[in-house]
């Protein structure tokens, strides 16, 4: 004979679904009806995309012969299933006054917040920043500079992934404001992934060519012309916790260089001036190019050219590359001296039609 003597309360469990629950079952020993057995088995499943913060566990208390008895669940994990169970006991007398505590929490917080439980990473607003600045030396909150609990306040030039809101906490002081927790430490961007070809598209491109790449937050970067006519890939991997970004440049999926840069802007959190925080990022125009490019400068191959001694008009030719002088002084009378000198120099340096 068996009966359920206690129902579990799962209100403290976060981020897990209950797959099965036997509750607490009391069974009477068939041989000796004065002896009881207690059993329970609860199976939790972590929600998709969540990370475990506290493994599920059940504590059960009851009075036996005026003595408080405590039973702890045996816990096991199998394929994202968290099993808490208890199957034993020979209890001569069991009260009906059961109490249980069921714990277990999982969150969509990123693993890095789980790995560093004392470090909190949040996306903050202008109001949050002002609250931080105003509260740092508030003696009612603390008699220490709460700024010492700020590792960094950084402005990143992209949207970060956010999850649930949580209190702003500096040390042990809760600032009565909330801000969303950030759910990812790393952010990947691909700035380019395509074939970069030279003028000719053949071996001639490897000679007398230069490749310059405008890399945001780095500057102008030069790579060898040997990489012309290959598939160039430029990727940024940003670590917002370390404020570092790794720029990797590939040629046909082979890494040719890796550069480390700083990506976020430090924001001073000691000021409360609104305008300081309401302006958009003013990028350093020297390093954060508005329209970054891969630029190829290539010296064209020498071509054969003929020394000639021909008098005539440009319209005598359908095409060609020429060097001319104005021996007949036909141009000079129509121009001022500055333009005449400059035009003659241009013609003497060569032009083509």
């Amino acid at each position, binding site marked *: 004979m068996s009966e359920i003597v206690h129902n579990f309360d799962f209100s403290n469990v976060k981020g897990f679904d209950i797959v099965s629950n036997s509750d607490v079952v009391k069974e009477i020993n068939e041989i000796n009806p004065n002896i009881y057995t207690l059993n329970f088995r609860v199976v939790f499943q972590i929600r998709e995309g969540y990370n475990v913060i506290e493994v599920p566990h059940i504590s059960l208390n009851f009075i036996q012969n005026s003595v408080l008895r405590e039973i702890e669940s045996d816990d096991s994990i199998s394929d994202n299933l968290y099993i808490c169970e208890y199957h034993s006991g020979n209890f001569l007398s069991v009260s009906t006054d059961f109490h249980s505590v069921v714990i277990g929490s999982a969150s969509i917080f990123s693993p890095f917040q789980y790995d560093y439980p004392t470090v909190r990473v*949040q996306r903050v607003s202008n109001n949050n920043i002002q609250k931080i600045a105003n509260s740092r030396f508030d003696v009612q909150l603390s008699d220490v500079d709460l700024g010492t609990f700020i590792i960094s306040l950084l402005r990143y030039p992209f949207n970060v992934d956010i999850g649930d809101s949580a209190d702003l906490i500096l040390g042990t002081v809760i600032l009565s404001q909330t801000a969303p927790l950030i759910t990812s430490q790393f952010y990947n961007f691909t700035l380019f992934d395509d074939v970069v070809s030279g003028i000719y598209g053949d071996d001639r491109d490897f000679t007398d060519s230069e490749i310059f790449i405008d890399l945001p937050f780095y500057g102008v970067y030069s790579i060898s012309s040997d990489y012309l006519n290959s598939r160039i890939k430029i990727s940024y991997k940003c670590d917002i916790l370390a404020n570092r970004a790794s720029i990797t440049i590939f040629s046909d999926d082979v890494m040719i260089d890796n550069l480390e840069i700083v990506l976020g802007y430090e924001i001073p959190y000691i000021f409360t001036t609104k305008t300081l925080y309401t302006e958009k990022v003013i990028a350093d125009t020297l390093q954060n190019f508005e329209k970054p490019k891969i630029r190829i400068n290539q010296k064209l191959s020498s071509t054969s050219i003929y020394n000639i001694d021909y008098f005539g008009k440009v319209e005598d030719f359908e095409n060609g590359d*020429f060097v001319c002088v104005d021996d*007949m002084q036909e141009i000079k009378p129509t121009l001022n001296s500055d333009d005449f000198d400059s035009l003659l120099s241009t013609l003497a340096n060569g*032009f083509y039609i």
Partner: protein
Amino acid sequence: MTVYFYKMTDDKRKLNKTLNENEKIVKNIVLLDVANINIMDCVLSSNISDEYNYCYIPSIKRYYFAQTTDILSNNRKRLHFETDYLMTYKNLIENSNLHFVKSSNPIGDKITFDTRNKISRKTYNLNNPFLDSYSDVLVSIKGV
């Protein structure tokens, strides 16, 4: 002063340059440092693409190359232009009798190599994901 701005991809040494009228931008601008008509500066809004690197001023019938660009505050930029003599005097060049000293056409019999630095330029645009948005991130210590 009315100025037509163009995207120029032709080599500077090409006599008859191709101007894409469909992408032409017409602006009224104030020329700066106009002491010399062969060079000029003007200030434009930065939202005009850097690809607009060539211009024509109809009132003085002159063509100019954008040589350099300076980024200014308040989303502006200053462009420095120099005269394109080939396009500005194209008709005069075509119709005047000239002395052709060298040519790529095999008219003469003395063959040499053209060693002038003829540079071709080619560009590929990159994505820039760092312009349109930002996030302020607080990294703090709790519970100490």
